[in-house]
């Protein structure tokens, strides 16, 4: 299982989550494949996209 804590500092995750969310256009449903993949990834890392 992927261990996010092995590389991802809390502050880094916060910045990454912020970067992914603010650079996602349209709604989650209508976003592109890359954007959906990154959103899924940060959620898996524990970032709350809401």
């Amino acid at each position, binding site marked *: 299982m992927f261990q996010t804590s092995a590389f991802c500092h809390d*502050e*880094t995750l916060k910045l990454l989550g912020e*970067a*992914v969310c*603010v650079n996602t256009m349209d709604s989650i449903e209508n976003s592109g494949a890359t954007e959906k993949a990154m959103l899924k990834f940060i959620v898996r890392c524990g970032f709350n996209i809401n």
Partner: protein
Amino acid sequence: MSTIITGPNGKRIHIKGASEIVLESCTHYLDANGQKQPIDDQMKNLIMDIIKSYAKNALRTIAFAYKDLEAGLGGPNHEDKIDGSKIAIAEETDNVLISIAGIMDIIRDEVPNAVSQCNYAGVRVRMVTGDNKITAIAIAK
């Protein structure tokens, strides 16, 4: 693309894009402790090697960076570009690399057969992509 947000400490620009181009605009990266560290030649080469290793494994690479903007920067025209530049003026330098991501874009089941049928019918198949060249070659293989 980039987006500017306003927080309690002022404006911040968040940049997302092709790894090599975003990396070129970064002077710092975040280390394992979330601390900003300068990107020297050795670190730049290391990050480039990581990007290439992702690409060789058919992963689409994408980079994320940010910069806290000084007062007065980051107006509504922040995506203006100098002629010929691939990136906006506000994105050009002094950014902090947050992450390089490698995304697997799984080839749909019907694609190999479709390519085979095209070849059998004498249709020359060409790939048109905005992906990194190494990624495109790895996917084609």
